[in-house]
């Protein structure tokens, strides 16, 4: 995967958490996700289409998901809260939307968010590169941003 996309997501994660929650994120070294690795308990998923195709997953353990959703919404949230999935989905939407502005030379569209809750669930996709996992650490807990993208064109020249 092009390092431009990884950098775009790292920048976006920092920006979204700082702006919406006043939370600093320490981003670890991205690593390739092993196929047998099970995801966390809550996944916020956004699909990308156009000249960049694939998906982005914000992947949390439940206590971290609750803490992040609460900080994001400015109200206490638990998995039974009416807006819990809405908050996680909107957070994924912001991270993906904010990242794609830095896909220099590539036009992409994002899907509406989906949220999956359940211990041991996996998110898989065909025809796309393996997921690259960006580990993130905050005062609210640790989570991962998983990115699997391919490009569907040669990028336009810079400044074009």
């Amino acid at each position, binding site marked *: 995967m092009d390092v431009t996309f990884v950098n775009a997501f790292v920048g976006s994660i920092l920006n979204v958490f700082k702006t919406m929650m006043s939370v600093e994120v320490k981003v670890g070294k991205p690593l390739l996700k092993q196929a047998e690795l099970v995801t966390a308990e809550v996944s916020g998923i956004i699909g990308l289409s156009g000249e960049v195709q694939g998906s982005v997953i914000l992947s949390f353990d439940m206590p971290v998901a609750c803490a992040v959703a609460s900080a994001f919404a400015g109200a206490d949230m638990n998995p039974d809260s009416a*807006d819990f999935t809405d908050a996680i989905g*909107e957070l994924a939407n912001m991270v993906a939307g904010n990242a794609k502005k830095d896909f220099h030379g590539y*036009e992409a569209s994002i899907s509406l968010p989906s949220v999956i809750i359940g211990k041991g669930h996996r998110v898989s996709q065909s025809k796309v590169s393996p997921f690259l996992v960006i580990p993130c650490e905050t005062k609210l807990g640790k989570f991962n941003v998983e990115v699997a993208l391919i490009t569907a064109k040669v990028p336009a020249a810079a400044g074009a």
Partner: protein
Amino acid sequence: MKILLVDDSRTIRNIQKNTLKTLNLTDVTEAADGLEALSCLANQRPDLMLVDWNMPNMDGITLIKKVRETDKTLPIIMVTTEAEKSRVLEAVKAGVNNYVVKPFTAETLSEKIQQTMAKCGAAAPTT
């Protein structure tokens, strides 16, 4: 002053409502997509509309184009994750008066609302 908030995320609508409250703007109607917004507009014309771009059923850009077919002056602010220059230009061409990129701070949203109301000749809200 009547505000119409159009966003498929209730979390975002709540965040926006909290900002509006700091400006003493509490007469707020909510819509979860463009179609719901058109129904609201058929009942009552707001003084300001905040619109998301990506929504189910009818997206924000389609909504704005439809509104501008009959109403050229309603102040509209687009509040969206779509941050590319080409998208901003598309929104301006469709008729938005201002543009806020998500993520946003309460201060940024508040400033854009006041700026838009002043620009559109309406009484700017007070803090």
